């Protein structure tokens, strides 16, 4: 497959992605997590059909970086909001803690597993490569995707405090993983940086760069800029942010997410910007996920058969802890019962984005372990989460209809 056909394929994928989204920004067809392209990419990639060669993937690396940066920007811009409703502060903190807790449990379990499966003789506190690998896996497995929660809620027409809480928590749990990605990227000195810098300074630098460019964007759009200029300014600043991160081998996800946060926090035009960029999310996400799927090379993951089940088991335990803590703090959630645990296992675009970012930054076993773990968690989530969420919402008494697609009339509306 040459570059031209591959480019056509990616554009076609983006087009299909846009067609699959309804007028209200909700998907009408497909899987709950929205991760179908990962499977297609995996089939086209070197592991199965081999149509997408490693050389071709290299060629599309800048495109993948732009896709990742924009996804992170959109998530940052939308962080703390569900549509036009602001998520209360306590829930934002709760969601963030849920993400960090899952990350810590999965990363810890992965680290122990890796040390047990292949002992290197390096003291645990100096085993940087394992920390990056385990931390990346933790970050990739931390989320509960808002897409799956919304997908199920739309289909069973769920409404009520439990549905709202799940939407809020699943929206707010991205902060931890996206920030920690940046920290993990600095543990191995970036090849693109000329000056040696302490990892802590670099991490703060990434956050600072993203926030600063977000604020700069907000200042520019708050001036006399015309509606046509808005796209130019937004596209320009995001390209600068993504481009600088790529050039210095920093985490595009962290910089993009922080830019979105900074912009969202101070801009008077948040809703206008949101309305402008949100329709771009699915068309962007689709090619990025396709590239993520195509990069999966299970042959590069050491001890695959032990590692992946271990990671998934750790994720299940972590989500059970999250569900338990949430039910303790928020009594109405208790009505949802045990099905809530598999319900929280849903993950998708954010996980795959983290997996792809690690695969691009740490090519080889480290990056592949993170990417394959993200894919495995997504597949497992796809198998168990929709049923779990449906059951949980039904038990909570918030599901008003049986499962099935939305009525045609409503879709048309």
């Amino acid at each position: 497959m040459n570059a031209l056909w591959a480019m056509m394929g990616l554009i076609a994928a983006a087009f299909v992605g846009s067609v699959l989204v309804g007028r209200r920004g909700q998907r009408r067809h497909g899987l709950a997590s929205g991760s179908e392209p990962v499977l297609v990419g995996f089939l086209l990639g070197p592991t199965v059909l081999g149509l997408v060669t490693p050389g071709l993937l290299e060629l599309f690396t800048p495109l993948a970086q732009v896709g990742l940066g924009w996804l992170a920007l959109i998530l940052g811009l939308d962080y703390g909001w569900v549509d036009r409703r602001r998520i209360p502060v306590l829930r934002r903190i709760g969601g963030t803690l849920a993400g960090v807790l899952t990350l810590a449990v999965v990363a810890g379990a992965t680290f122990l597993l890796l040390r047990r499966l292949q002992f290197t003789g390096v003291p645990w506190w100096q085993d940087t490569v394992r920390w990056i690998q385990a931390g990346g896996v933790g970050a990739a497995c931390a989320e509960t995707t808002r897409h799956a929660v919304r997908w199920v809620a739309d289909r069973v027409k769920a409404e009520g405090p439990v549905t709202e809480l799940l939407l809020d928590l699943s929206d707010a749990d991205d902060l931890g993983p996206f920030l920690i990605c940046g920290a993990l990227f600095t543990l191995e000195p970036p090849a693109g940086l000329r000056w040696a810098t302490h990892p802590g300074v670099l991490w703060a630098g990434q956050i600072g760069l993203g926030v600063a460019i977000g604020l700069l964007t907000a200042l520019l759009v708050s001036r006399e800029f015309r509606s046509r200029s808005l796209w130019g300014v937004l596209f320009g600043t995001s390209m600068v942010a993504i481009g600088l991160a790529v050039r210095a081998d920093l985490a595009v996800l962290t910089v993009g997410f922080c830019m979105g946060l900074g912009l969202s926090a101070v801009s008077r035009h948040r809703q206008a910007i949101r309305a402008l960029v949100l329709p771009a999310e699915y068309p962007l996400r689709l090619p990025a996920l396709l590239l993520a799927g195509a990069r999966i090379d299970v042959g590069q993951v050491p001890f695959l058969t032990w590692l992946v089940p271990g990671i998934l088991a750790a994720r299940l335990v972590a989500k059970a802890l999250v569900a338990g803590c949430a039910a303790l703090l928020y009594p109405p959630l208790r009505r949802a019962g045990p099905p809530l645990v598999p319900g929280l296992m849903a993950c998708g675009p954010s996980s795959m984005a983290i997996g792809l970012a690690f695969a691009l930054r740490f090519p080889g076993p480290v990056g592949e372990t993170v990417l394959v773990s993200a894919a495995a968690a997504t597949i497992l989530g796809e198998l168990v989460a929709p049923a779990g969420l449906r059951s949980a919402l039904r038990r909570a008494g918030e599901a008003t209809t049986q499962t099935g697609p939305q009525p045609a009339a409503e879709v048309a509306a």
Partner: protein
Amino acid sequence: VSGTGEHRRGANRGVELLLLAVLVGLMLLASRATEGGGSPALAALGFLLLAGTVVANVLEPIGIPHLTAYLLTGMAAGPYALHLVDHQTVQDLSPINALALSLIALAGGAELRISMLRSTARSLLWAMLVQNVAVLLLMSGAFFALRSFLPFARVLPLTAVLGVSLLWGMMGITRSPAATLGVLSQTRAKGPLANFTLGFVMTSDVVVVVLLAVVFTVARPLIEPGSPLSLRSFRELGHEVLGSVALGSTLGLVLAAYLRFVGRQLVLVFVALGLVMTQVLDYLRFDWLLIFITAGFVVQNLSKQGDRFLAEIERLGEIVYVIFFATAGAHLDLRLLGQLWPLALALAFARAGCTWGAGQVASRLAEDPPALRRWGWSGLVSQAGLALGIAAKIQAEHPSFGTAFAAMAVATVALNELVGPVLFKTALDRTGETAAQPEPEVAAETPAT
């Protein structure tokens, strides 16, 4: 109130300049602090886009057209000044540039309405004849007259200089559809001058392609004595023009059908067309500028989708023009311009003078209204990619003098590229065709709760 408004606008420009300075500082820091990491093209693209937009906004009050501001930004950021964008990055951005130009050509074709062409047919026909034939001959004469000052022409035999002069004359009749559309997009001008310039610049592309074949055929035996008078160029011309028009018409009909029956995600369709089709069409040796102009023309005039089509392209307009002209600015060889500027200036002056004179003659023959008679030539001074493309072709076909010829062409085109848009915008302002109402600002929302 007016004073307060002026004060506020002045303060805004100050803040924008400050933000631009921060951005330049960030880019300078990045270029010092990074080495051998990822490609710098992404950051450079973003910087050109952003800096171009800000500089255009800041320079607007003093009457500088946006696209001149984009060019200046590119020149300042490029490899010959601040070095924020290096040579390799400029090369890496060429597919984006091709995409931008294809969108500009589509928009140009779609702006051409048959009714508009009919209303200006008499003016267009006379201008087409006089501006192309007379300027070609006069510019050939000017080049011939200046031959003793041009080191590469001085050493050539007289017949060869005649041939090279004809090639230079050919370069003189190329215009810039991108610059014309860029100025019209900014000013949203409507009126006889806007219509005439648009109609002339877009349709002259076909005339230039035909004349190019004629000039190449005539000039070759003069430059290379003994080489036969070959009609090969005409065969290629037939293939190129007829093939491009046929393909453009088909593409236009397909686009119209898409708009009618699907009508979604036009941005993706345009990106696919721009990035992929330009590669395929180059391989097929078609003139893709002509293809896209024809496609836009077909959508506008043979379907009911024209206005919607134009509106969709205009949504991308700001980004497309900034990228195209800022990259063009970064591409300009300022060192070369520094060396050749006296001769380049003389040739650019000669061309502007010939264009003005030809405009006067054509306007009298066509009995144009006074405004057109006075300013009709102003939109024909800009030059850009088409002239440089012809120079590159001459460089490839005549290696003995081609490099020096192309360098001279780059220097002259650079001047025309900078001055032309200013002249055209001034003319539109003076004739009162510039839109009175500026584009609305983005409305601020009520504070979120």
